[in-house]
């Protein structure tokens, strides 16, 4: 089946990556190596191959999500070239290839998505194992103060928390679908406080304990927020009862406050967030955030011009502060367009969720879309000092393999849900 809309969008993706590399390399001619010609070409090759793959397999799903994901990935490659040390670019484009492979596998492999809901406890256990794996002695790694990495030698390391972002919505969707008849039963009340039925109450408490564990043992504030956020959002999608989710947020705030009093590494994040310019922080723990804020402040309406700013002053800019770097160089206008791309992506994902034929698929698509939206919010908010800074990636844009692969699996799952919807409806 011909996918003209998708192909049309891909032309613009190719232009974007070409012009982006031209601007960056034009600004720093000493970076003119064969690699900067090969990488954009290879990326366009991957994009076209994925498109042709969907055409050949007669795929009927959505035609907008893949170009959106690829456009964001293209901007990501431009900024890895712009910001990172030279070897990162080669690594990132290799990861893009792996991500494309994961995308193809997700489209092809499970014949029927009900496999996902049938083995839901297997998924739950897999998710827990992934989450706990960085704590294991041999393979676990602590990088920049957070114990969230798993590695084998120097060759291979990844962040299991990223994969949990896919596994968790699968499990929750299956679990909440199974207990959906309870939605109609009004909650019992203790005084004015509604107490949810046990099948909802147990996971709320369990997830809360788990989130606290991640925050304390792995020192990863971002993962804590995202796991618990996905869970509360899906609970709301399934039950339509805001009270449960609000209670969850209050539990998280209370737990976070207690943790910040008890544990230094949680407290340090909060202190930096509240006053990064304080004398003792400005050149210490707050330095990264301070430089990020300068970058945002320098941006103005149109920015310094791609390749013309000074974002390299921000430490680890290519993973934590891509948004600030992007904004510094393309300005408010560019940042607005970038956020609009994310918005359209999430809107599309939610539309796919609304139209899906079964509650499981609806919850799955809704949960995955929310995960991406929330992650974007958490890191952009962290860059702008709206909320405490966490180490999560900006989806598709930040340097990082685990994140890119996971996000392309999410795109593939959303496409599959929309494909099923089209086939069921005969549209």
């Amino acid at each position, binding site marked *: 089946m011909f996918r003209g809309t998708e192909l049309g969008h891909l032309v613009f993706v190719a232009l974007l990556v070409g012009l982006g590399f031209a601007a960056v390399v034009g600004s720093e001619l000493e970076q003119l190596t064969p690699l900067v010609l090969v990488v954009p070409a290879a990326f366009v090759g991957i994009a076209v191959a994925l498109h042709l793959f969907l055409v050949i397999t007669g795929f009927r799903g959505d035609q907008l999500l893949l170009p959106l994901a690829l456009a964001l990935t293209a901007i990501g490659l431009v900024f890895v070239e712009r910001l990172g040390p030279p070897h990162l670019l080669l690594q990132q484009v290799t990861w893009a290839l792996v991500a494309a492979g994961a995308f193809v596998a997700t489209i092809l492999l499970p014949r029927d998505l009900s496999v996902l809901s049938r083995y839901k406890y297997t998924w739950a256990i897999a998710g827990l194992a992934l989450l706990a794996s960085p704590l294991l002695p041999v393979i676990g790694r602590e990088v920049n103060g957070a114990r969230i990495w798993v590695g084998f030698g120097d060759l291979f390391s990844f962040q299991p928390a990223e994969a949990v972002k896919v596994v968790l919505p699968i499990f929750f969707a299956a679990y909440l679908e199974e207990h959906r008849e309870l939605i109609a039963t009004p909650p019992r009340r203790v005084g004015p406080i509604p107490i949810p039925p046990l099948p909802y109450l147990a996971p709320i408490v369990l997830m809360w304990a788990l989130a606290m564990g991640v925050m304390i043992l792995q020192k990863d504030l971002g993962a804590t927020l995202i796991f618990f956020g996905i869970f509360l959002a899906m609970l709301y999608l399934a039950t339509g009862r805001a009270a449960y989710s609000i209670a969850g947020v209050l539990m998280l705030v209370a737990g976070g406050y207690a943790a910040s009093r008890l544990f230094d590494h949680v407290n340090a994040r909060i202190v930096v967030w509240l006053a990064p310019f304080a004398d003792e922080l400005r050149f210490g723990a707050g330095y990264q955030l301070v430089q990020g804020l300068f970058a945002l402040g320098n941006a103005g309406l*149109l920015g310094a011009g791609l390749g013309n700013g000074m974002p390299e002053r921000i430490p680890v800019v290519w993973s934590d502060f891509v948004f600030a770097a992007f904004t510094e160089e393309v300005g408010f206008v560019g940042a607005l367009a970038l956020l609009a*791309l994310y918005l359209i992506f999430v809107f599309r994902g939610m539309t796919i969720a609304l139209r899906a034929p079964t509650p499981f698929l609806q919850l799955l698509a809704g949960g995955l879309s929310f995960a991406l939206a929330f992650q974007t919010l958490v890191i952009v908010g962290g860059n702008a000092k709206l909320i405490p800074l966490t180490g999560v990636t900006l989806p598709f844009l930040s340097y990082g393999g685990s994140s890119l692969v996971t996000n392309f699996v999410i795109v593939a799952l959303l496409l599959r849900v929309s494909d099923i919807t089209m086939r069921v409806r005969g549209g």
Partner: protein
Amino acid sequence: MEIPFQLALWGVRVAFLLVLYLFLIRAFASLSRSLRIESELAARNALGYLIVQRTHAQGPRVGERLPLRALSSIGRDAANDVVVNDEAASARHALVELTEGSWWIQDEGSTNGTLLNGSRLARRERLRDGDVVEIGRIGMRFESQVRYGSA
């Protein structure tokens, strides 16, 4: 560096932003196009309609045909199949259902009730062609697209 090169570089930077916006506009256009197709499909394949007869300034227009599916919820909330924008309407107000060839309507425990041909709905009632359903200040005539007895 010489001036022509700097000018060309400036051009490339502007072109990057321009392409970013062109892509955004195209993405937005295909988003809104597919939403429009969806609502047209829903309207064309409707099993029945509620045709607005009486309304107010903020409500739907007179003569607007609100499509019905086999099971349609009516209410003020945007998640309903038929959205009635009236302050007297409950978030989830009433339910219209097609079962074994005949149409039924029931009130979903709304605060201000549903009127069928002028009398307040107490239980599930048959809904026939030409019946008038009133919710708040909005009155709608029911029209079925299904031939009775044949389904």
